[in-house]
């Protein structure tokens, strides 16, 4: 069995603002295998974006802080990485795609320079010039010769295939030598006229084109994990369909695992292999996407699926979820959904339900089976 790309164990992330503490992510566990697409779906404020940024340690700390848990990326626990070594974590195999591509691209650089920059960084990393975070406290020193591969378990060893140093040095020589590589990534994301696009600035591109550039940048770092945080939410429907098509094709071409964050059930249904439904900072249901969507076993998932408008007004009102999302500075005790749940009983108010397998016969060991954090999950199919 292959090693998982990412393993998140009981991760808790809090924000401290003034006297208040927000429990943005509570006890979240996840496991992503190579080549797998895991979707996280949930409403605004459920903590999905925080999770996405917590994994590559992109959250500003403070106000955010990782309370407990582990983020094991290719054998290394990112939670234990010190502040000064954080830059080494980013761009070492975790690629990010954000929602708003205009803000995520530097407006002062042409497309070429944007992508060339991430390729350059990857080369530095492959040459060992960017020290792995186990190795070092020293700042980058581009004048020094490459440092030999670091100790076992380090990031650089885990991710970087041994590169022919001479070839790498050659590629570093001039920026024009990046050109072919940049072009190849632009072609990879199906950009029709890469030679022209190369010299444009981000503001001269359409939203869909910018998002392709973002994807090209993320891929050019040759990540083993791609975190896509609402990558298509700012795009128009037809453009979103194009970008989703592209991403689905790339899943087959590049063997990166993808953590796909979205509020849109439809987008998750189209892309993910497995889905985690988040509510108020917790994953309340997890499992293969077909099973979760066909036979939801958490009342929240069920109600969320039904709230999506799919009929005409003469067919009756849309079903809604009573109540509102709880204030995460004072989350309700027990199951966080119980104030809005028609199945709630005393046990739900007192104790937090564990994420238990839906099929009691299934091996509880596997992280990839359908699970629901509801004491009465067998009653959910009969809900209303």
């Amino acid at each position, binding site marked *: 069995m292959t090693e998982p790309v990412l393993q998140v164990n009981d991760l808790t992330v809090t924000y401290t603002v003034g006297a208040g503490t927000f429990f943005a992510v509570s006890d979240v566990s996840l496991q992503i295998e190579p080549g797998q697409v895991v979707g996280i779906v949930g409403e605004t404020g459920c903590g999905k974006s925080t999770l996405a940024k917590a994994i590559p340690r992109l959250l500003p700390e403070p106000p955010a802080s990782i309370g407990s848990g582990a983020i094991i990326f290719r054998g290394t626990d990112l939670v234990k990485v010190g502040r000064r070594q954080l830059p080494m974590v980013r761009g070492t195999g975790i690629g990010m795609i954000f929602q708003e591509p205009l803000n995520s691209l530097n407006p002062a650089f042409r497309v070429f320079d944007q992508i060339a920059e991430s390729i350059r960084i990857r080369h530095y990393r492959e040459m060992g010039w960017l020290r792995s975070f186990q190795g070092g406290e020293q700042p980058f020193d581009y004048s020094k010769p490459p440092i030999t591969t670091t100790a076992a378990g380090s990031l650089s060893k885990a991710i970087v295939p041994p590169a022919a140093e001479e070839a790498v040095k050659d590629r570093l020589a001039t920026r024009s030598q990046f050109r072919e590589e940049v072009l190849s990534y632009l072609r990879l994301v199906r950009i029709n006229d890469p030679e022209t696009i190369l010299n444009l600035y981000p503001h001269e591109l359409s939203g869909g084109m910018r998002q392709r550039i973002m994807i090209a940048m993320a891929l050019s770092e040759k990540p083993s994990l791609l975190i896509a945080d609402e990558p298509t939410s700012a795009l*128009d*429907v037809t453009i979103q*369909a194009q970008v989703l098509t592209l991403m689905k094709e790339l899943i087959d071409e590049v063997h990166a695992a993808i953590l796909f964050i979205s509020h*849109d059930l439809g987008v998750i*249904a*189209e892309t993910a292999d497995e889905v985690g439904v988040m509510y108020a900072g917790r994953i309340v249901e997890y499992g293969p996407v077909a099973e979760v969507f066909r036979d939801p076993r958490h009342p929240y998932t069920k109600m969320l*699926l039904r*709230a999506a408008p799919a009929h005409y007004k003469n067919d009756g009102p*849309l079903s809604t979820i009573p109540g509102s999302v709880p204030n995460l500075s004072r989350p309700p005790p027990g199951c966080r959904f119980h104030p809005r749940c028609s199945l709630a009983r005393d046990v739900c108010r007192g104790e937090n339900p564990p994420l238990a397998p839906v099929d009691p016969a299934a091996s509880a060991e596997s992280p990839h089976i359908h699970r629901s954090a509801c004491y009465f999950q067998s009653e959910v199919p009969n809900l209303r």
Partner: protein
Amino acid sequence: MSAPPPLLEVEGLEKFFPITRSLTETFQRRSARAVHAVDGVSLSVGRGEALGLIGESGSGKTTFGWVVSRLHDPTGGTIRFNGQDVTKLQGTRLRQWRRNIQIVFQDPVGSLDPRLRVWQIVGEPLRAQNPIDRTLAKEARARAPAEFRVAQEKYRRDLAEHQRAKSSPPEPGRSLPPEPQPPEAPKLPEVPPRITKAQVRARVQEILPTVGLPPDCLDQYPHEFSGGGRQRISLARALIVNPSLIVLDEPTSALDVAVQAQILNRLVALQRERGLSYVLITHNVAAVRFVADRVAVMYLGRLVEVGGVREVLEHPVHPYTKALLAAVPYPDPSRRRTRYRIGGDIPSLVDPKPGCRFSPRCPFVIDRCRVEDPPLRTIPGLGERLVSCHRAEEVQDIAPETLLATGPTSARPLPT
């Protein structure tokens, strides 16, 4: 004139935004370019009807909503409201007319003044309309004596004429003119009293429950509400002057699914309770499906298809409508592994070339589409449906799913 005119009737509406010429362009005497945001749109909305206006960014749907609400002045075309031409209304008359048509914006944060309390925000239209009523009533009162004097003068002249006619010997073949009636003393219109703070608060308190807000939140600030709550405040502000039409500009786009469902339910309920008309502007096909009675699809400033909601969404004729419907992701994993085959970007609206606006991306394009504007026309056998496509008859039975290719990595986007 048997049937009453539709509530809102728009004909050939155009809105161009000129692009400021750069210095070099001015020297080169290049003519000023313009963004053709709305380019000849004709539509009508009946009483109590909800019209869904679907389109992507750059389709001009929001501009259309703003022009129809007279927040932008149209470049061309006419807007008739209740049969009255309101295209040229200005000043106080325009501000008075505004009570008929209200608008709810997309941005739940930006559409409420952060410094005002709920009752001030919701009551603002009341407090704005009250002085207009007072001004118009006062003007009418001021005019009345003069008009009365004119009428009296006329009466006196007519009476003198009449008496002269009566006293003179009757001429054959000429009947005596009827005796003029003295003019009635003018009915002076009441100047409505200045609206008080207590009255505004009372009215606001009345309206809040109809949008699902508790009546005791009068003194809260907008930032104390969630996105859905803010949208309800916007809706209350629109409703307070009893408009007959509300333009809803992406009312749920910033909201989560569960909250969106609540707002959409509320919109439908309000439409039924109050006989409201809506123009629902959105890119969200699902919202249009649920709220609208009729649908108009816009692409790059033009209408491409208009018809009943069920007909258009279940049997789209125009290739763009098909492309749009095919692009909507469904929360149903059994429909996945599909590849979308409409390539290309939404082109620029600056001085568009002639021909069908969708032709660069259309999979069914023929040469004629690139040179000749397709008119919005009825299609035999489709009743009221209007479609602007040269090949409507040929493509009408192609299902939207045809634009999706199933199977792994089979299709690339069609070349543009």
